[in-house]
């Protein structure tokens, strides 16, 4: 089976992860702009980070045959440094137009402060202006209220729910998000978010319509194989293959394809990173070969 992980912070991951992801059937990924585990203190740090997820990381990913997309946004945690956030907001229009950008995000609330609210709204307006979907990060703390409030604000700004992916849902938020017409994403992340067994139950209860599974793997203890693992667990628990396909591939594609920047043809014939072959139908993977040896416990490091 083929999978998409529509939320994974690859900048924090190693080539071993890329290799394992490719082997597990992941063909495309989305890297939402987020924070790096510690706050940035300069505008330039944001600029270089954004440059990296529109340039360097897609290249790195392509070496493993995986198509890389990203979302651009100022995350809610760092929105609280208002003078810096104002500068970062000036950068966003420049990056929102890039080739692999499929949404504005992840934005929303962390502590639900006034500053977070201000920059959340400004970015909703930006998304409307450039006609991109929106990826919502729902808070860890006071999650239910934060999620409801996010949807209220989006509706206040006249955003069509089908253009919005609400992420990090759980059993408590799923119903409201789905009932109001949004895409509901679930993050399989050990201990802090969803476990894969709970995810199986969610799909049993709600079916597969507008439900999306992701890993949000990052610099913390997390699992870049969470999507394929959850898919296998769903199959083992009697969930229909079609529903697994919808939740672990198709729904993410349908949601983010609304950007106009993501389409299946980007990866079905292989991922290339040489522009000169763009119209030649050449699908050969170039550059440094992904590691050839099979995963043994040998002490020999390939020459």
């Amino acid at each position: 089976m083929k999978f998409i992980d529509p939320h994974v912070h690859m900048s924090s991951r190693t080539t071993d992860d890329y290799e394992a992801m490719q082997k597990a059937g992941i063909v495309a990924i989305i890297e939402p702009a987020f924070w790096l585990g510690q706050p940035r203190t300069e505008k330039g740090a944001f600029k270089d980070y954004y440059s990296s997820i529109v340039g360097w990381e897609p290249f790195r990913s392509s070496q493993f045959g995986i198509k890389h997309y990203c979302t651009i946004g100022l995350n809610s945690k760092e929105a609280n440094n208002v003078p810096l956030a104002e500068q970062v907001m000036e950068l966003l229009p420049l990056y929102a137009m890039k080739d692999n950008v499929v949404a504005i995000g992840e934005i929303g609330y962390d502590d639900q402060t006034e500053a977070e609210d201000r920059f959340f709204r400004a970015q909703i307006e930006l998304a409307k202006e450039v006609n991109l979907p929106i990826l919502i990060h729902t808070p860890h703390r006071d999650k239910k209220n934060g999620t409801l409030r996010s949807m209220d604000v989006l509706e206040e700004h006249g955003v069509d729910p089908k253009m919005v992916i609400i992420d990090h849902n759980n059993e408590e938020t799923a119903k409201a998000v789905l009932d109001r017409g949004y895409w509901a994403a679930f993050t399989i992340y050990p201990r802090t978010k969803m476990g894969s067994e709970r995810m199986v139950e969610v799909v049993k209860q709600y079916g597969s319509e507008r439900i999306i599974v992701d890993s949000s793997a990052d610099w913390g203890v997390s699992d870049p194989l969470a999507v394929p693992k959850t898919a296998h667990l769903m199959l083992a628990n009697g969930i229909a293959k079609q529903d697994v396909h919808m939740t672990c591939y198709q729904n993410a594609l349908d949601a983010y394809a609304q950007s106009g920047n993501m389409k299946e043809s980007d990866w079905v014939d292989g991922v290339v990173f040489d522009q000169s072959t763009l119209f030649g139908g050449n699908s050969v993977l170039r550059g440094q070969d992904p590691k050839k040896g099979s995963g043994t416990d040998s002490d020999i490091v390939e020459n």
Partner: protein
Amino acid sequence: MNQIALTGTQIVNAKTNLKLEIYQSCLNNLKSELAVSWFTEKVKDLSSTSSFYLAFGMLKRKVDDGPISIYEGLNAELKRINPAFSHTKWTLVEFCRLAFLLHLDSSDNKAKICTLLASSDMKEQVVIYKSLQYLANAEDFKLEIIDGIRTNMVDVFDAIASENSYAFKYFSEDAWNHMVLKAIFMERPIYRIYGIDDKKNAKLTGILQDFVHERWAAGRAVTPELWRMISGFENDSIFEDLKKTVKSDTGLGKTAAIKVLQESSYVSWLADEGIEETILSWNEIGLQVNQSTD
């Protein structure tokens, strides 16, 4: 370097015509009325920094990408600036972006293009690096291009190194050598570097010979194309390396070493050893080396 000597005014005129001809060619290639009117309007409005960035970024959404066809006159003009130019290496979106870059006023195009480069995605970097050689003030961007070859993104590197005359025209010997060496490290096709034979030099030969020894010490092979840059700078020490390559290498590495020897003063060694000369050209060797990936 270039046989045709033009006066300053003639160069300016030629570039002015180039700008208009490329603009016209873009219009000819655009398929929809909507794209034509959008493009026509945006070209007139590149003076503010933000309108330029937005138009440059929006282009890919406004234009249906595809291959381009161009008239012979424009083809000849582009080849005059860059003899390695081929329209088959350009897409319509790239060509329209080239038109935008040419339409910037050269009094402030440097600041605008440098800022754009600093925040560009991979495709944008590729087209900017491919385009700079066609600007009237191309030479002003030398440091940016030298910085560009420090990239590890293959297609960005290729945009500078392959079928691009910029390095040939403007790079110092050290910058040129750095580019060639990096191309070898990145396993990029050497035969596609414009002017590769004309800019060979003794310093590069020395660096490459050290590189060969380092690779051999590590039990690794070197690309057969490497010997092309050494050809013409042989000495007794390199002769030993070539002999070793002919004896121990098989395939194209051996062919390349034979080729260097047959064109050198050490040619008699081949006859003494009963080794047949090769009829392959360096480009043919390069093509074969890169066949699996090109």
